[in-house]
């Protein structure tokens, strides 16, 4: 046969996987952003190993949701924003995306707070670190090569595994860890419920669904490559959960044992220094820095992208300024706003974080319901609609998430 000299070898198969690799792993890494690290640190410091079990349901839900996004992207070749606009009408679309825009400005602010906090551990003022990082990220994306940027971050995201080092240095109690996972327990008080909601909520953010689906389309994946895509998603979700696990362990085995309470991820890094040594604290802070920068790069970009997609403006970093004015305006605007809020002395950071979490919490069920309706629409998905078992887990997830979101919304009211 004519193709003997070009036959696909085992190496070509691996190369194929590496080429497809990305959407799942990048989404998984961005997931562990500044907000995530903060939530995990706080959970570890307050409750020790007790809440480690929450990572298992988080993992399952994460895989189920991302698989649906990937499948929709592969089958339709359309972004989630496009599909929502074409099927849910202009009003629903408008309110979803205004909400997402506001929430993501808040999230971006949190990322810059992560940059400021982690650099403070290395004694660098936020008035220096935040503007420099914001400008560099902006420049890399607008003037540089995004593919290269993405790859650099992919390598960097491996450095999140540094948390493993940080955790091991604290001599964790493996027996207690094992027990807490095998026999899940939680106190049914308001605060512990809030932390559980926080852990699940930070793992499944609405904007990720849009990002996931777009990157699958960008890669031009097809159904024949589905198993590689699924593998990519699973690897990404495992990475997310493993990093989260070690952050909780790192804080549980040191801060919790000594009874130190924290509010922010940088507090964790600083508190670690006397307990587990300067190296451990620096590793922790560096991880926070990388995670924050990574997310500060992707979040504003993804937001600008899907807002433009929904409203029909040209978008994409391969477009020129004049061709995609709305896109660049949004991207730059989100960056600038996020950075400026951090630089205001005594900015109400905690209020901003809480509000962006509340908006996220309200939007997540809306987006998920849209998603499940779309993925079950035969006109859109053909024979690739959800199977009954996927629908069962999908709707179950939506029900639990709505329950949790409603609880999260009502909690502050109960407190008052």
């Amino acid at each position, binding site marked *: 046969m*004519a193709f003997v000299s070009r*036959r696909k070898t085992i190496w070509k198969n691996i190369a194929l996987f590496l080429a497809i690799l990305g959407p799942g792993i990048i989404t998984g890494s961005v997931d562990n952003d500044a907000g995530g690290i903060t939530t995990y640190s706080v959970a570890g410091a307050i409750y020790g190993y007790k809440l480690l079990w929450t990572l298992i349901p988080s993992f399952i839900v994460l895989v189920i949701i991302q698989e649906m996004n990937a499948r929709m992207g592969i089958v339709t*070749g359309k972004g989630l924003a496009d599909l929502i606009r074409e099927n849910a009408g202009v009003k629903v679309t408008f309110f979803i995306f205004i909400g997402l825009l506001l929430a993501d400005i808040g999230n971006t602010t949190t990322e810059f707070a992560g940059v400021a906090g982690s650099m403070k551990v290395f004694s660098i003022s936020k008035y220096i670190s935040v503007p420099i990082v914001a400008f560099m990220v902006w420049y890399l994306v607008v003037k540089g090569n995004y593919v290269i940027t993405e790859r650099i971050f992919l390598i960097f995201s491996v450095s999140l595994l540094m948390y493993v080092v940080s955790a091991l240095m604290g001599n964790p109690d493996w027996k207690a860890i094992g027990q807490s996972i095998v026999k899940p327990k939680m106190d049914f008080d308001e605060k512990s419920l809030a932390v559980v909601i926080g852990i699940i909520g930070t793992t499944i953010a609405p904007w990720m669904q849009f990002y996931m689906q777009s990157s699958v389309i960008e890669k*031009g994946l*097809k159904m024949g490559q589905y198993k590689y895509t699924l593998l990519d998603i699973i690897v990404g979700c495992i990475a997310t959960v493993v990093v989260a696990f070690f952050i909780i362990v790192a804080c549980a085995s040191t801060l919790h044992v000594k009874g130190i309470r924290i509010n922010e991820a940088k507090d964790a890094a600083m508190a670690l220094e006397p307990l587990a040594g300067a190296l451990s604290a620096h590793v922790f802070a560096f991880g926070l820095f990388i995670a924050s920068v990574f997310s500060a790069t992707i979040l504003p970009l993804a937001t600008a992208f899907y807002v433009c997609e929904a409203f*029909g403006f040209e978008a994409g970093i391969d477009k020129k300024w004049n061709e995609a004015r709305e896109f660049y305006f949004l991207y730059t605007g989100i960056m600038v706003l996020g950075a400026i809020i951090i630089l205001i002395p005594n900015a109400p950071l905690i209020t901003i974080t809480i509000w962006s979490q509340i908006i996220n919490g309200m939007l997540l069920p809306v987006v998920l319901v849209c998603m499940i309706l779309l993925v079950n629409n035969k006109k859109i998905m053909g024979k690739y609609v959800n199977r009954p078992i996927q629908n069962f887990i999908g709707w179950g997830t939506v029900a639990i998430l709505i329950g949790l979101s409603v609880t999260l919304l009502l909690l502050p009211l109960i407190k008052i």
Partner: protein
Amino acid sequence: MTSQITFYLSQILGKNFVSDDGIVLGKITDFLIDQSPLPGQESEPVRPRLVAVKVKKANQTIILDFSSFEIKKFKRKLRIVCLEMHSVSDESYSNCLWLAKNILDKQIVDINGRKLVRVNDVRLVMIPSGTYVIAVDVGLEGLLRRIGIEKPIQAILDTIHFSIPGKFILWDDIEAVDFANASIKLSKSSSKLNTLHPSDLADIIEDLDKASRTVVFASLDEETAADVLEELEPHAQIHIVESLPIEKVADVLEKMPADEVADLLDALNDDKAEELLEEMEKESSEEVRELLEYPDKYVGSLMTTDFLTFNERLSVAEILEEIRKLKPDPEQISTILVTDKNDHFLSSISLGEIVIAEPTKLLKEIMNKNPVTVFDDDKVDTLAELISKYHLPAIPVINKEKHVEGVVVMEDIVDDLLSRRKTK
């Protein structure tokens, strides 16, 4: 009464329509537009005419003939009057589109802007001869109007003498592409897409969703389809090749240069590629098979086998006459190869050099005495350097017996460089 009323689709969609004496008859849900030219006006640009209306009446959806409808402006408010309800079947219309289902909120091709845009609203006009679509609204103004906050926002902006930017595109300058959901086929002759440059068309097709991609591509004539397929990104190429009938793809592939076909087939799985090669005409498929033998990094994988050779003893006049007779693709003749009577390669010469030479000169007098050539098993990396150093539009590829194997043209070298930079 004015004889002309203009209005937006969003102003009447979902509104009630009434009988002549003002009794509410039902709710309007969609309009059918007919795009076929009126008898006797085939050469005129088509004005899409409203022919039917879908209404909801007592929880039942029916389709009514539009000719008994009238739209009146009454104190700045629109009033839709139906004189007689005349039920029709939508199957009796061909070349028609539903405005709400196929146009509104969907992506369309902006022919002049050469890109996809999303329709926020549709502008219509009612004149005595009928109601027609004039333009689509793709701007911010239309978006705000749909959400219902255009007027209050404009009122605020009025105080600073600023108006919401609106953007309209005339119906003549758009082409709808949401055919996955429409019952009609995009007709080949009337499609405005054929007027676009194949490269622009390829960019648009890449941006479309998978279903529309296939339909739009299938509507192109074979020549355009071949040019477009050549320009598409590999993953879009593969998707189209895999989703169209094999005979149709084979016909298009036959129109493409063999080296491009080889690259495309190389990305497909072997069975599919073999199937396509079987389906193609023998002459074309054999050329492609030869090229497929070369691994990626060798010159052979990049070269084209479409080139012209002439005997050294021919004169400039004879060659030009021959070229005019053959009418090859312009890119095939950027460089012309010179051979001796045994078909051994002697030299190459650019078309430019031939054109400026005296008609009576013989090829051997004007050809380059030290031609630059490569072997088919040379590495690809050397090519860019050679074309840059010697200012060549193309490089001849020869084998060890000095027979010509093909030509590598500059465009393919540049494409190769660009694709490598992308994947690095």
